């Protein structure tokens, strides 16, 4: 397909506003200002755009949840806290076309009548935070942001806010807490951010890629956007492919291509002529898929039918040289490190899984380990925690144990078990200390 979100990649000077304007940039913003907020929301609803950050929630609907009669300020937050392992698409958009994001933020802010927008970008992305700040400065100088934008009477300020290293701040309520200057502890929902968000005001949090789609919907229309992909799974999507492929990178493809096409055609197949063993379809939080599932379509609904998720579109490809116990161990450590620590099942469970997998990887697995892992995962998923990080580690780990059980069993068969530690418990016969008054 012709590139939409990545059309500026490879164009010299693509980051400057001059290049962006010459390519028809900010036309969507002008059209939105003419249409009015309600018509903008309707256009995005009709496009069937779904959030690109991981959950796939319809963007127009999210915007429509903001109470219409709310008197005070409202906020739009652009989520650029890209931290899901295997995901590097937002960085690509910002690197080549930051104005696309700024225009999307402007349109979305106007749609929900927010006069202040924040871009929450992960702390490590110093370079990309600077690129965004420069782009905001350029747009402001042209009167596209600031007070009374293009004579419309609408005011808009956009601020870049850097995080400081916490995966959990990609979760929208943790992001809001962090933006308020606190530790990134996810909030219990409801109330949802659309009603009570940042600084206690109605807030919409949208991913960078989602917002980058918005200008194109405004200029080319909802029908054009919906003609890409298939019903309920519309539009272009950025797939980030990493791991054992010949040409890793960011690919823009219509939703609904198969993972086989992504891996074999676009990425030139598995590296070194090896065989595909497994892949994560949407970042490491998505349940793993085996080589037999490579013909599943890469869109929200098809992935859900296959008991996994499209997530952020971060495809991690693993060839037949990898050891699934080591992969599980690596992933468990990531989540054990990134669990915010609020909920016991996630804080303790991710740590326990990492400990058990460390022991298995070191050659001391026990026959009971796979079932213990599954039990810990079961108690950490499906609503047992405030935010989805509980599921984010439990679902991929349990999928790995289930789909590659033979490999786990083989590791255990070859293992040298360590003696199990038990606390010495002696029967107490004398008077009870401290209670024998």
């Amino acid at each position, binding site marked *: 397909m012709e590139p939409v979100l990545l059309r500026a990649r490879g164009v010299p000077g693509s980051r400057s506003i001059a290049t962006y304007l010459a390519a028809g940039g900010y036309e969507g913003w002008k059209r939105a200002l003419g249409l009015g907020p309600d018509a903008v929301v309707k256009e995005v609803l009709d496009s069937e755009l779904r959030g690109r950050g991981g959950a796939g929630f319809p963007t127009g609907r999210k915007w429509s949840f903001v109470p219409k009669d709310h008197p005070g*300020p409202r906020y739009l937050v652009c989520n650029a806290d*890209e*931290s*899901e*392992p*295997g*995901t*590097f698409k*937002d*960085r690509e958009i910002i690197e080549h076309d930051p104005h696309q994001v700024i225009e999307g933020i402007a349109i979305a802010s106007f749609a929900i009548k927010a006069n202040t927008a924040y871009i929450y970008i*992960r*702390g*490590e*992305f*110093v*370079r990309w935070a600077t690129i965004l700040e420069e782009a905001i400065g350029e747009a402001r100088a042209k009167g596209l942001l600031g007070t009374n934008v293009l004579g419309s009477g609408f005011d808009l*300020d956009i*601020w870049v*806010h*850097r*995080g*400081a*290293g*916490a*995966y959990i701040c990609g979760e929208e309520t943790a992001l809001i807490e*962090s*933006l*308020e*200057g*606190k*530790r*990134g502890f996810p909030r219990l929902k409801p109330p949802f951010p659309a009603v009570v968000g940042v*600084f206690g005001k109605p807030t919409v949090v949208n991913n960078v890629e989602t917002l980058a789609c918005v200008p194109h919907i405004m200029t080319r229309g909802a029908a054009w956007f919906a003609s890409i992909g298939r019903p309920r799974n519309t539009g272009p999507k950025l797939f*980030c*492919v*990493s*791991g*054992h492929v010949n040409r*890793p*990178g*960011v690919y823009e493809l219509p939703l609904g291509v198969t993972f086989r096409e992504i891996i074999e055609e676009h990425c030139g197949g598995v590296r070194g002529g090896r065989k595909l063993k497994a892949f994560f379809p949407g970042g*490491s939080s998505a349940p793993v898929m085996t080589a037999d599932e490579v013909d599943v379509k890469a869109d929200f609904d098809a992935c859900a039918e296959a008991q996994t998720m499209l997530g952020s579109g*971060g495809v*991690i490809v*693993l060839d037949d040289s*990898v050891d699934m116990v080591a*992969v599980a161990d*690596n*992933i468990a*450590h*990531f989540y054990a*490190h*990134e669990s*915010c620590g609020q909920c016991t099942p996630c804080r303790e469970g991710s740590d326990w899984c990492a400990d058990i997998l460390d022991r298995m990887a070191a050659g001391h697995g026990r026959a009971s380990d796979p079932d213990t892992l599954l039990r810990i995962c079961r108690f950490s998923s499906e609503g047992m925690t405030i935010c989805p990080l509980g599921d984010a580690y439990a679902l991929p780990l349990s999928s790995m144990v289930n789909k590659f059980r033979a490999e786990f069993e083989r590791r255990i068969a070859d293992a040298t078990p360590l003696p199990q530690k038990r606390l010495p418990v002696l029967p107490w016969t004398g008077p009870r200390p401290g209670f024998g008054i």
Partner: protein
Amino acid sequence: MTTRPLVVATQETTSDVKFDKTMEDRIADVLRRYPTTRAALLPVLWLCQERFGWISPGVISAVAERLGESAAFVEGVVSFYTMYYTSPPARYVLQVCTTLSCSVCGGRELVDHLTAKLGIGFGEKTPDGSFQLVGVQCLGACGNAPVIQINDDYYEDLTPKKLDAVLDDLKGRR
């Protein structure tokens, strides 16, 4: 790409921290972006780290006082995030990504190489204070694995040989 070395902490900056005019101006510029003072905490901590090299107990007290928070609250926030240094860092902090894509595409070899070359493990500094090795979680550049972030800059598609050239260059500049 020229990676700037980090500020070397001095004794004064760690205990009794005072904000000068430049710093106060920068803090004021941050404060006007948010409806609450507390929201400026993360950006102000960034300014302090840039200026003083690390978030010392003295910095925590000064920030707490300036923003009207308790030192305990500020310390709680500092300790939650991984990127604020709570001890003086080396001039170049080598943050090696240890997550899946990097790990299976040469990241582990890179760690072995660094450990052997510099004689330090994760969390340690070279005796001359030039380099510090840190294992970090996904840096979000998986397509160009393996990746190392040195101070603020990303170095991607690395091999031990390329990394040697980078380190020699940084060491030479001092």
